[in-house]
């Protein structure tokens, strides 16, 4: 039976009342008119913060089991080679060695980049394993390779895989309207070629796991964003041993970053479990920094040929993009969405192809394809503003529109005010002196889509008032436990201190989403509410009998259970829970029903503003300040949201100014696979970051929550790129914007 509800949605200055239906065993939307006690009212710190900073929190890297072996992988040093493991006997005879295994059947195959997994050695100590791995004899037949994507496009270049290097052979096109007509209508046209670099994930905790058997059951502590996909992968990888998934337990209690690179079991995960079985001892394998950098994924580079048409007033009439994405030896990417969705334009054509090279494969990286596309569209718009001699904020504001659920014009305006755009903005390149300052802005958008069947949550109420909320998701580092506890406490009307959150363990037997795509909050939070709602109704039924009323007449706020019709009837949450005596109440909710309100969307929007200082004599760019305006629907955990935004901005600064996977043209290896020459920003490179969180009540799920991992990671690079162009009056079209490029661009400008 569906039940009709009403609520208020939208954002400040743009709200409306709506009606919607939800099944009776689920709870209604919180909405703008809900009387919140915790969400948006109390600033709850991360529940596991103390555990993390004191080292009590154990990451996969920290798991050490009794009698455990340590394993090390051997990778191919050549960019392209046939390989064959010819002799492992010397390695096997090394001190402490218990196992030498190969990744490919027969120990042979074709390595398509320097870093290809070849073999794994397991020994009593990690040092012994490292020594042994070096003694594995591998015969390499080195093949021609190609590293430079422009060269790879040449038909005469070595083939990375079977088939051509350019995929698909004919560009896939996305069209809206009539792009030729749009350019005919244009009064001004700008064109530019923009490139973005390959950025590696550089997770603080490298990829890896510990595997341990107990009889027929295997437990794997895995640094992963998806415990269920790991469990499935380990089971299918070892099905020849008779392993079934009901005997696989995967645990990820804490993890040191993934950013999209940690979804699968990994070949070494399966091999660790295999070796642990064969040797009869637990096995630990965490990649070293080198292997993690070259093997475990990256954000693909891109080259975007962008052409914009516009009226003299700055209104866009046409966007045409021909983009090449550089995913290495496998994978693919698309930069289309920022060109198609960030600004209003009726006539768009995006043509894309992937260009393969003998380099490490790309993986999802915090908003796949979006920071690249964002840099392309924002820089092209900046150049349009330069050509029209317009203020770039004015130009960009002119090309965005909103709805009740899409607050981007409001966010852009709010950001400009907080940033002080009017006072700081000046004509491109107009500042005198050697040190020049500039400002830039960019918008963001990401679909944070909740999966309605993606999570099962169990809520247990205990007689002492304590509560357990459990789900088979894991905390990527976003503060998932805290978010779930806040939702449960708000729904139950009690303090967060009553709630224990259990996650990160497949043995909970509760379906949970992988932590990716900014979907975990919209997938789990509505189910947390539903489970708590169903559990509290069971408790309220007991109280209703005592108070001679209906369960629906009972509510709980701030730890007091009360009758809505008889205000004298009330008791503390603890007293109410004590009625359970020696039992507990358990309710398990499977998924949620989408309210399905017309116009509602899953988009999280925002805008960022950057301030830079450019030393025109040294070429050095410093980003000094970022103002990040962001919505994630209705923000549930404000402190964690701010932390997500800061982390995303720092990765954006890294992409704009510092990080770059540099490939050697001589042998085709990454030449900076370390923390020295691969330049991750440190504290001195981190700008002042001001977060401005906007609540947009969108009836997309019952909490109104949307994910936030990705949206703020999209616009930072574009905003900084625009700010540099504003400062020096000449666009730097290649990321990262390093001193060599700035000096060269200034020299070209003068010359």
């Amino acid at each position: 039976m569906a039940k009709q509800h009403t609520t208020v949605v939208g954002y400040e200055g743009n709200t409306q009342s709506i009606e919607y239906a939800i099944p009776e065993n689920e709870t209604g939307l919180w909405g703008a008119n809900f009387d919140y006690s915790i969400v948006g009212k109390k600033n709850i710190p991360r529940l596991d913060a103390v555990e993390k900073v004191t080292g009590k929190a154990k990451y996969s890297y920290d798991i050490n089991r009794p009698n455990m072996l340590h394993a090390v992988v051997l990778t191919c040093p050549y960019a392209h080679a046939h390989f064959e493991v010819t002799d492992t006997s010397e390695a096997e005879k090394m001190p402490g060695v218990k196992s030498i295994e190969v990744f490919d059947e027969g120990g042979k195959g074709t390595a398509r980049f320097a870093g290809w997994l070849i073999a794994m050695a397991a020994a009593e100590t990690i040092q012994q394993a490292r020594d042994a791995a070096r003694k594995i004899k591998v015969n390499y037949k080195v093949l021609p390779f190609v590293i430079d994507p422009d060269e790879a496009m040449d038909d005469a270049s070595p083939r990375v895989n079977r088939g051509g290097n350019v995929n698909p052979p004919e560009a896939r096109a996305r069209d809206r309207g009539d792009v030729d007509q749009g350019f005919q209508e244009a009064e001004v046209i700008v064109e530019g070629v923009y490139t973005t670099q390959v950025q590696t994930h550089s997770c603080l905790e490298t990829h890896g796991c510990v595997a341990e058997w107990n009889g027929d059951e295997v437990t794997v502590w895995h640094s992963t964003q998806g415990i269920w996909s790991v469990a499935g992968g380990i089971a299918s990888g070892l099905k020849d041993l008779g392993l079934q998934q009901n005997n696989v337990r995967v645990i990820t209690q804490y993890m040191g970053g993934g950013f999209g690179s940690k979804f699968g079991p990994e070949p070494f995960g399966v091999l660790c479990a295999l070796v642990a079985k064969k040797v009869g001892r637990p096995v630990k394998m965490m990649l070293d920094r080198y292997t993690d950098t070259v093997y475990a994924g990256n954000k693909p580079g891109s080259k975007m040929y962008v052409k914009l048409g516009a009226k003299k007033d700055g209104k866009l009439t046409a966007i045409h993009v021909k983009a090449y994405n550089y995913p290495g030896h496998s994978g693919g990417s698309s930069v289309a969405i920022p060109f198609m969705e960030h600004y209003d334009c009726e006539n768009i054509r995006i043509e894309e192809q992937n260009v393969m090279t003998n380099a490490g494969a790309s993986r999802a990286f915090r908003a796949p394809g979006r920071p690249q596309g964002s840099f392309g569209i924002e820089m092209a718009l900046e150049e349009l503003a330069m050509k029209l001699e317009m203020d770039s904020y004015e130009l960009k504001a002119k090309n965005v529109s909103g709805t009740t659920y899409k607050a981007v014009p409001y966010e852009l305006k709010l950001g400009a005010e907080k940033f002080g755009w009017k006072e700081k903005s000046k004509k491109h390149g107009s500042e005198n002196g050697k040190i020049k300052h500039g400002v830039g802005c960019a918008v963001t958008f990401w679909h944070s889509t909740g999966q309605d069947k993606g999570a099962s949550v169990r809520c247990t109420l205990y007689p002492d008032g304590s509560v357990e909320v459990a789900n088979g998701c894991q905390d990527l580092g976003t503060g998932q436990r805290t978010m779930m506890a806040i939702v449960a406490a708000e729904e139950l009307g009690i303090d967060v201190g009553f709630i224990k959150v259990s996650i990160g363990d497949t043995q909970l037997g509760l379906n949970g989403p992988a932590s990716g795509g900014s979907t975990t909050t919209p997938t789990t939070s509505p189910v947390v509410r539903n489970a708590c709602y169903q559990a509290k109704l069971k408790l309220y039924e007991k109280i209703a009998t005592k108070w001679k009323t209906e369960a629906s007449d009972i509510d709980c706020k701030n730890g007091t259970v009360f009758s809505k019709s008889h205000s004298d009837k009330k008791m503390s949450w603890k007293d109410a829970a004590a009625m359970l005596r020696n039992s507990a109440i358990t309710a398990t909710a499977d998924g949620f029903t989408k309210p399905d309100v017309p116009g509602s969307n899953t988009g999280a929007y925002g805008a960022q503003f950057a301030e830079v200082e450019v030393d025109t004599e040294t070429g050095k760019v410093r980003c000094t300040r970022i103002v990040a305006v962001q919505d994630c629907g209705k923000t549930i955990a404000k402190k964690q949201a701010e932390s997500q935004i800061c982390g995303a901005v720092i990765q954006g600064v890294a992409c704009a100014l510092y990080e770059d996977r540099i490939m050697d043209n001589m042998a085709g290896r990454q030449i900076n696979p370390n923390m020295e020459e691969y330049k991750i920003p440190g504290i001195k490179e981190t700008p002042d970051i001001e977060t401005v969180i906007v609540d947009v009540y969108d009836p997309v799920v019952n909490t109104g929550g949307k994910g936030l991992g990705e949206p703020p990671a999209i616009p930072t690079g574009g905003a900084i790129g625009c700010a540099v162009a504003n400062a020096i009056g000449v666009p730097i079209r290649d990321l990262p914007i390093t001193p060599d490029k700035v000096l060269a661009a200034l020299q070209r400008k003068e010359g």
Partner: protein
Amino acid sequence: MDRFQFINANSAQEAVSLLNDGSTKSKIIAGGQDLLTELKEHIAKAEKLINISDVQELNYINAENGSLKVGATTTIAAIAANGEILAKNRALAEAASVVGSPQIRNQGTLGGNLCQRPRCWYYRSEAYPCLKKGGGICYALSGRNKYHAIFGGAPAYYVHPSDCATALTALGAIIHCLGPDGEKTIPSEKFFTLPSEILLPENVLKPNEMITAVEIPTHNMKSTYIKFREKESYDWAISAVAAALELDGTRCVKASIVLGGVAPKPWRAKKAEDVLQGKTITESLAEEAGEAAVDDATALSDNEYKIPLTKTLVKRAIMKLIA
């Protein structure tokens, strides 16, 4: 890392005796910030490591009668924090304060800083059998060379990584060494070498010798060190300038300008010094000195930006000294 024997020395003399006991693959270790990474990466080989980090007679800063003597195992952090050094030999204090990261400065020593091996990414990768590892070619010449030399490169184009070496050379420091034949002193200027003179290592120190101290004789120079790096948090110099000027008002009586991060050794910019000698320093003269400093520079494919960058740093260092 291959296995090695680790021996604690109790004195400098004992360390040198251990170094000269017939085994060819013995090395001195103090802070270990460079040597350990080389051993882990299989770039360096050692059968025996002689630890001098607990030798107290090598850990001191003596500033007397205007001259300065610093023991080889003095940490970089201690040099950076020393008020006497800051007052009289500012370039050294400033150089020490920007070495590596706080952890490296706390652990690393002056002797180790001067004996650092190149940071060249080809040299640091076991996969490249480059000239500096006994191989046949310098990969940087036709490979990726954004961070490589614009002076004195041939036949190997690495740059000297030490901040302190650049500052000490500008300040006219003397390196005290101990070997089987006893003590000897070598001017910093002669201590560091080009690959065309000696391919391995980057100085005249013999495998059976060690640095015991560095001395800066009395002088009347004002000095400064400016280091340019992409990352302020932790980075080697892309270009650096140590400038030491003896001044009479704003007139330059004597100039010493040494460049870092641009050549395989601390690179004296003789032409820049000549521009300044005897002249009253103005912004345009400083600029002229900057131009002169890079007069003989030759860029590789990816490092042309180092030329205007270095020119700017020279100008700024000079202007800083008359400010």
